[in-house]
């Protein structure tokens, strides 16, 4: 089982009506691997993460997580569509951070971080609070634990969201353009936190990003998406230094020009 990748997209397709958003995607992500997804707007990057988080159903193919099928389950040697119980068991291994934070506005930073550990994992409150305090400290927000999201800056909210996801002890973390909604001066503090958890935790990380500098320095592999397909992938030095594909070159040039 351990030679299976942490995540496997096997012939996965996603359609909205007549629109094919992802076309027969095959993608493996290794244990502990940090993979960045880049590509133009509308190329299906968000959809990749949302399918993995089970926020979108897939139309074709199988999604594997940690050696087990997630969208399906084995029954008499055949893969059949998974029950919600099965999905929840597998989904427990995945956490996600959103572009728009999505903190729970009626709970404090601490409340956000202990909610799911208590209700979902059945942790004791004191235990959950202890763990949440550590995580809030790790993201540099010990002093803000009793603040509501509306009292925090965007960068602070996003760091709480990261702590909240980590509180569930996922093996895989998904980041969807987590700095895109932030004022430029707040981007750094969030990237700093992501760097830190990349170093300190044995996490598999999959991130959609427009921060090319960060993708280059942080990831083990970069995937360039174009019109619902992986157009080119490889080590960051390759993709950024010597892109083979014309589309990749065009995209990187456009991004570099923009800023």
């Amino acid at each position: 089982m351990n030679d299976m990748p942490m995540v496997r997209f096997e012939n996965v397709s996603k359609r909205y009506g007549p629109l094919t958003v992802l076309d027969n995607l095959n993608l493996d992500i290794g244990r502990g691997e940090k993979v960045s997804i880049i590509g133009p707007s509308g190329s299906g990057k968000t959809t990749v993460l949302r399918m993995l988080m089970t926020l979108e159903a897939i139309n074709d193919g199988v999604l594997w997580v940690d050696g087990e099928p997630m969208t399906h389950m084995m029954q008499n040697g055949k893969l059949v569509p998974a029950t919600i119980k099965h999905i929840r068991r597998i989904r427990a291994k995945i956490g996600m951070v959103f572009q728009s934070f999505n903190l729970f506005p009626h709970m404090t930073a601490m409340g956000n971080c202990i909610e799911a550990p208590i209700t979902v994992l059945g942790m004791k409150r004191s235990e959950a609070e202890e763990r949440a305090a550590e995580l809030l400290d790790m993201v540099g927000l010990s002093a803000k634990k009793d603040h509501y999201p509306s009292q925090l800056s965007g960068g602070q909210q996003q760091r709480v969201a990261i702590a909240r996801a980590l509180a569930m002890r996922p093996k895989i973390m998904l980041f969807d353009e987590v700095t895109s909604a932030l004022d430029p001066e707040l981007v750094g503090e969030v990237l700093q936190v992501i760097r830190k958890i990349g170093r300190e935790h044995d996490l598999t990380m999959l991130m959609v990003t427009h921060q090319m500098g960060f993708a280059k320095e942080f990831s083990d592999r970069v995937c360039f998406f174009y019109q619902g397909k992986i157009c080119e992938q490889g080590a960051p030095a390759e993709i950024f230094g010597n892109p083979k594909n014309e589309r990749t070159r065009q995209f990187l040039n456009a991004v570099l020009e923009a800023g």
Partner: protein
Amino acid sequence: MWIRMLTAMLAATLLLIALLSANPEYRLFMPGLLEGAVLTVEITLLGAVLAVFMALIAALAKLYGPLPIRWLSTTYIEIFRGTSALVQLFWLYFVLPQFGIFLDAFLVAVLALGLNIGAYGAEVVRGAIVSVARGQWEASIALNMSKAQMLRRIILPQAFTAMIPPWGNLFIELVKSTSLVSLITLADLTFKAQQMNQSTLKTVPVFTLVLLIYLAISLTVTIAMRLLEQRTSRGLTRGRVA
């Protein structure tokens, strides 16, 4: 700010009732009217509890129930919104006995009004749940909550705040529609007023007092709802630290 103004209005109304009662012309009617007012308030409170309960069940059933349950809930909502509260009262009180079901008038009053307001409330609850940002559901899924956990811990608490103002309107509606119960023999505020008016022909004092008492009840409801709104919106708007 609003609460202060409303409280001032309530105080003025109560003061006016007190001042008028100093006049023997008026004082004469006060004991009877207050007796009726107590019944009005009782029916309002119990009706409100039933309405909230029914609204919650019907809204959740309509949103998340299996198809037959959704149908059942929609049927309930449409029947009780689509026919008048008076007809519902009459039906429960005068028609059901034809089928051998005899219900006490007070029970009928609470049932009919509670079910009626509950049907409107179901749409209020449903609207408030639907209006909670989609990202809240998605964050809850990403934290691996079950549907019930999401609803109970994340969605309903946020929907609750959005529901309070429309529920305030419905409760006022409820207070006013309690006057219909006078038509099924219950001695509520309106019933007492008509009775006294007929026996004494003192139309001005009787209906002036009745008007003021209804106003006092409605203002109390409005103030209570405003206070509730203030308490629960903590965190949802930029506010103080708990």
